[in-house]
């Protein structure tokens, strides 16, 4: 064994990176055989730090030591040679190859591809609790198993220190517990883990040591046995942690959005992406859609926005817009906060005022009208300044490029824009994903106020606390269907998580699921369909 | 047989109309002079017995004048000196004026056109030569026509000549045009006399009127010898796309196709693409006919010269030389209106000796064309 007690030491890591947050003088020491959690809000710089440790990016300043020796990683292969492996948040597996092939791909030189390799894979699979036959195709595996395959992959390459980047974001609570069991077992065998998360309960449950990162710099370490979640959160945000509140209902009986029989065939004739989706959102109501990512939420939103052509009817404010263009739907009063603002919400190199025009190019105050479709740039700029002030967008002014803003400020701009022009309906897809806590609270507050004014909101979120906290009612989506209803005032994240997996026993446990006959039927149908088959991880991923 | 033809020729010279050959039934004609193989399937007509006194050899050559005072400018077409073809022929004419007319080499200037250049670039090039005092100036290629019309009007005291164009109407512009179809007729006849498969090919660089003259003459000449002959004519690029003059690879592919299709003699009028035609002939063990210059003697083709049966000569060199000579003598009216067979402005090459055995036939056709007994079309009939 090497003499140093630290498997990994980072000192003075600084990265001036044209991203959301740079790393600024980060220090981090990871003891061997421990689970070391790195906490921080989304965009705090955790991922950048891990990319530096894994050799994907090179630090501008600072040193990395592995087992006491200073190393310089030029690429991930250097990091792998030093015994560091990374399991990315988004899996890097080839669906059309088998488990064994995925593990061997690129590492054929280690143990060959014959019996030696099979033996080693079997050993490692046992270590991480991967019980599937290495000969099955990855596409037939569920998310948790895929994650185990990823872990086997890095172990196969000789990793003793494993970076888990937001490993729980794709898992439901039960799967998280299983993962933690695996991690604890491996820790007992001497593996070291770097556990990246911003979910504090999980961090406290698994970590031996916590380092908190805020705004690109390490603000301190904490002992999970003594620190409270609230204390951790305050370290992370430097202020009080807000939480979404359940407020008195503002739901009216005026229908704003009615979706009936929405159907969308899968790519290449696979499972349908959407199957018979019916829902109604009333004025003043927040309808939450829960579901493991990739079960049709993205497609549902895009179908309602007219970005994808789907069968069925979409009625907004009493007007059938099923065949209308995206722009016409927007003009009918639909605001849209897309799940990925950098790809779907913003023009990165354009100034903020030009981004203000996107989606509003046909309406005042942006459009001046006329035969040529003239734009009023002055009005766009003035209205951008209004959004900046009203939604607390931290920017020097409306003329900077959107890419220059941090994620939270970008998102506030998008939210402000989509609430412009008095929308009747807001489609909010992961509205607080990747934004800092301050911005998150602001966005929650904005949504709550808009709801009070009578806005109908369709909320899609992977953050179950957010979903439960904001929604007036929740529907669970699984494999393109709405399979269960839940009452946010009584449901727990665990119950919701069970329903999201489509599991037979937990579906019935979802509070309020049986309140309507239709929902009960849907639940039953899915139960039958789920029996005996593996859950597919991201059926919609390829289409995005 | 050779004797009989010699006899016929003698008879021609005696200005007697001898119809001995024409009276023959083509079906029973034995293989023509060059038909040293089993060409029985290729019925060949005998060479015409033409009117006497039309022997082309008697070109009234002007005495060499002293051109040492002249500054001669040449504006080449695309490719310039070294294209192994058209521009080189003009360059050879210039060399000859230096060698024989006393033109001082330092007093000559050669400029070349660029690919895809605009009309005004051509005009600028001519103006440059004018500005530097060159007189006469020879524009090589019909692409200069419009520009020359403009520049000649600007500089009425400068003498210009333009090769391949007769549309510029100005007193100080001399057209130097050629009867390419006549020379092509002769090589067409040569091809028909030499083919063993009774099948020949023509490859034109670009499908434009100038090259169609080559095709027309070649086809007519071949059919005059062997009416049933197969002629496979192909162009490398359509009108307006000049790549066909500079695409040896395409020339090789097309020629190979023609050889595979049965032709055993292919005539090219495709500029630098001819290189590929010769390569294809060499690979196929067949023959090819060159164009413009005596390509048997072009150094660039030294490795393929053994497949070059003959070349259709377009004596741009003669025209340039004669023009400079006439300017030196002070009288360009002595120049022929068209450089045709009668003034040896076009012809066929004998380098390599591959057509020596059919020379009498070819000369008989030549005489018939000069005498007007045969009129060669300038447009392909097909």
């Amino acid at each position, binding site marked *: 064994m090497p003499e140093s007690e630290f498997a990994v030491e980072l000192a003075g890591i600084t990265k001036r990176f044209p991203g959301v947050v740079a790393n600024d003088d980060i220090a981090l020491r990871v003891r061997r055989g421990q689970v070391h959690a790195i906490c921080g809000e989304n965009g705090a710089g955790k991922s950048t730090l891990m990319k530096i440790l894994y050799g994907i990016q090179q630090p501008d300043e600072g040193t990395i030591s592995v087992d006491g020796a200073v190393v310089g990683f030029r690429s991930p292969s250097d990091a792998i040679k030093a015994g560091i492996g990374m399991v990315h948040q988004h899996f890097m597996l080839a669906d059309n190859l088998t488990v064994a092939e995925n593990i061997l791909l690129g590492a054929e030189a280690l143990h060959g591809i014959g019996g030696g390799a099979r033996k080693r894979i079997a050993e490692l699979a046992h270590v991480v609790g991967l019980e599937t036959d290495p000969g099955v195709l990855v596409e037939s595996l569920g998310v948790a198993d895929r994650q185990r395959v990823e872990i086997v992959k890095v172990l196969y390459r000789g990793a003793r220190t494993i970076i888990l980047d937001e490993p729980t974001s794709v898992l439901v609570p039960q799967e998280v517990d299983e993962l933690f069991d695996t991690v604890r077992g491996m820790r007992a065998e001497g593996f070291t883990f770097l556990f990246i998360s911003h979910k504090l309960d999980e961090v406290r449950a698994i970590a031996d040591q916590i380092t908190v990162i805020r705004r690109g710099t390490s603000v*301190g370490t904490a002992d999970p046995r003594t620190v409270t979640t609230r204390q951790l959160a305050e370290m992370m945000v430097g202020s009080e942690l807000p939480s979404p509140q359940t407020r008195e209902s503002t739901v009216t009986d005026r229908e704003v959005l009615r979706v009936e029989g929405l159907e969308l065939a899968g790519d290449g004739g696979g499972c349908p992406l959407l199957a018979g989706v019916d829902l109604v959102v009333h004025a003043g109501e927040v309808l939450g859609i829960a579901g493991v990512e990739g079960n049709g939420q993205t497609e549902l939103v895009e179908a309602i926005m007219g970005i994808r052509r789907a069968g069925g009817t979409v009625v907004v404010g009493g007007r059938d817009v099923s065949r209308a*263009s*995206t722009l016409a739907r927007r003009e009918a009063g639909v605001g849209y906060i897309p799940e990925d603002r950098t790809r779907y919400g*913003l*023009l990165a*190199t354009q100034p903020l005022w030009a981004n203000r025009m996107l989606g509003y190019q046909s309406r005042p105050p942006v459009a001046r009208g006329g035969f040529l479709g003239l734009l009023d*740039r002055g009005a766009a700029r003035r209205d951008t300044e209004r959004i900046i002030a009203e939604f607390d967008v931290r920017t020097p002014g409306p003329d900077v490029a959107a890419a220059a803003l941090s994620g939270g400020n970008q998102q506030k701009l998008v939210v402000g824009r989509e609430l412009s022009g008095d929308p009747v309906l807001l489609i909010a897809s992961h509205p607080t994903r990747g934004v800092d806590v301050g911005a998150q609270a602001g966005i929650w507050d904005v949504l709550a106020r808009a709801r009070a004014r009578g806005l109908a909101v369709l909320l899609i979120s992977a953050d179950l606390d957010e979903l439960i906290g904001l929604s007036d009612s929740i529907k669970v989506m699984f494999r393109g269907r709405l399979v269960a209803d839940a009452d946010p005032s009584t449901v727990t994240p665990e119950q919701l998580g069970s329903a999201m997996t489509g599991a037979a026993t937990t579906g019935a446990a979802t509070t309020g699921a049986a309140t309507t006959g239709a929902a009960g039927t849907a639940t039953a149908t899915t139960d039958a369909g789920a029996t005996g088959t593996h859950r597919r991880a991201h059926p919609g991923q390829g289409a995005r | 047989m050779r004797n009989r033809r010699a006899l016929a020729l003698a008879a021609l010279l005696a200005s007697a109309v001898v119809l001995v050959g024409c009276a023959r039934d083509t079906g029973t004609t034995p293989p023509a002079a060059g038909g040293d193989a089993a060409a029985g399937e290729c019925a060949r007509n005998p060479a015409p017995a033409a009117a006497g006194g039309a022997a082309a050899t008697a070109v009234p050559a002007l005495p060499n004048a002293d051109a040492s005072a002249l500054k001669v400018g040449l504006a080449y077409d695309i490719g310039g000196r070294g294209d192994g073809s058209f521009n080189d022929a003009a360059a050879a004419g210039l060399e000859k004026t230096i060698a024989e007319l006393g033109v001082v080499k330092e007093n000559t200037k050669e400029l070349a056109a660029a690919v895809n250049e*605009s009309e005004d670039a051509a005009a600028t090039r001519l*103006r440059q030569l004018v500005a530097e005092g060159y007189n006469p100036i020879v524009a090589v290629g019909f692409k200069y026509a419009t520009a020359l019309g403009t520049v000649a009007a600007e500089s009425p005291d400068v003498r210009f000549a333009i090769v391949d164009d007769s549309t510029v109407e100005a007193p100080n512009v001399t057209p130097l045009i050629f009867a390419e179809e006549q020379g092509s007729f002769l090589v067409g006849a040569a091809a028909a006399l030499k083919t063993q498969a009774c099948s020949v090919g023509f490859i034109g660089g670009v499908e434009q009127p100038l090259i169609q003259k080559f095709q027309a003459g070649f086809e007519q000449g071949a059919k005059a010898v062997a009416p049933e002959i197969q002629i496979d004519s192909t162009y490398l690029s359509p009108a*307006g796309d000049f790549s066909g003059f500079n695409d040896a690879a395409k020339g090789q592919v097309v020629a190979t196709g023609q050889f595979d299709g049965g032709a055993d003699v292919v005539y090219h009028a495709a500029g630098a693409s001819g290189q590929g035609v010769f390569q294809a002939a060499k690979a196929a063990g067949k023959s090819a006919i060159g164009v413009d210059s005596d390509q048997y003697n072009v150094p660039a083709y030294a490795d393929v010269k053994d497949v070059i049966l003959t070349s259709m000569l377009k004596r741009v060199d003669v025209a340039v030389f004669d023009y400079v000579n006439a300017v030196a003598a002070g009288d360009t009216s002595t120049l022929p209106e068209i450089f045709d067979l009668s003034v040896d402005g076009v012809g066929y090459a004998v380098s390599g000796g591959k057509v020596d055995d059919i020379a009498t036939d070819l000369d008989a056709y030549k005489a018939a064309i000069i005498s007007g007994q045969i009129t060669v079309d300038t447009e392909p009939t097909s």
Partner: protein
Amino acid sequence: MKRIRSVLLPPALAIVFAALLCAVALVISGDSPLTALGAMITQVGEGTTAVDIINSGAIYYVAALAVAIGFQMKLFNIGIEGQFRLAACVAAIVGGALVLPPVIHTIVIILVAAAVGALWAGIAALLKAYRGVSEVISTIMLNFIATGLIAFLIRRDTFGLLQGNNISTAPIPESGRFPGISFGSSGTIFGMVFVAALLGVGYWYMLGRTRFGFELRASGESPTAATAGGVDARRMVIIALLLSGAVAGLVGIPELVGRDFAYTLTSPQGYGFTGIAVALLGRNHPVGIALGALLWAFLDKSALALDNVGVPREIVLIMQGSVVLSVVVAYEIVRRYELAAEQRRVSAQLRAVPVPEQQEVRS
């Protein structure tokens, strides 16, 4: 100020770099770069060269505008060449056949050219919008088809007339011609030069002030965001390519109605490809393209002088090639640098805003 610097610095650097590269090439081949440069600059004053530069510059400008319209939404209309040649050919045939009063005759010729250009680009547009065929492939192929079609149209048995060894369409009568501004022996500036300038103004206005221009740029910047913002991607592809083709159709018109009055075998080619280079050089900006077009025309026209001083004319090709390459590289470097600088500036400015306590350690 900073903006102007960031716009002007890259091309200036690129030109200097390209010039140095050429100088090195000249020195290696044993020629004097100064002589060459001197000859090229002197040439501008000779004969009609100055006017030729303006005229050719205008043609390059129109071609580059056509390319730039496509570039704005990341469409690479490589078929400007075919579109302009076919348009010029058809416009020449129509213009030569019609009898119309002056002005109207000219306008008809121009409109026919724009329509033919748009039509030809429209084929690629429909293939792209409805069949997903890459416009790069389809427009290249359409270039070949255009060459064949032109060859057919100017055959002697269709619309061609034999002029010596050349073939030409019927000449456009006086009424269809576009008078220029004559400078006597220094040449005549095409009237179409001013139309080209107007096109540039129209392009600038369309891009910055109209909904279409905004949607065009949005589609180019991020097709996904544009779609989410209600921009109909298919419609944009079609309109952008039609517009690009219509402008491309005008490329051959300055020479047609200002000098040649007929389409011939030897009518110039290659403007479409020059347009691509100039659009890259000018970064799709109407003023940048204008400067690029003039630079390109200067290099083209002055290159003729190099023959006089015995310098290989091909040096200009090296210059043109290296200037485009280095401009593209320089802009990309400056763009990245400026984005990073802006991000730094924004975060620095925001850091100055009170941030909660920096260090706290708990255990």
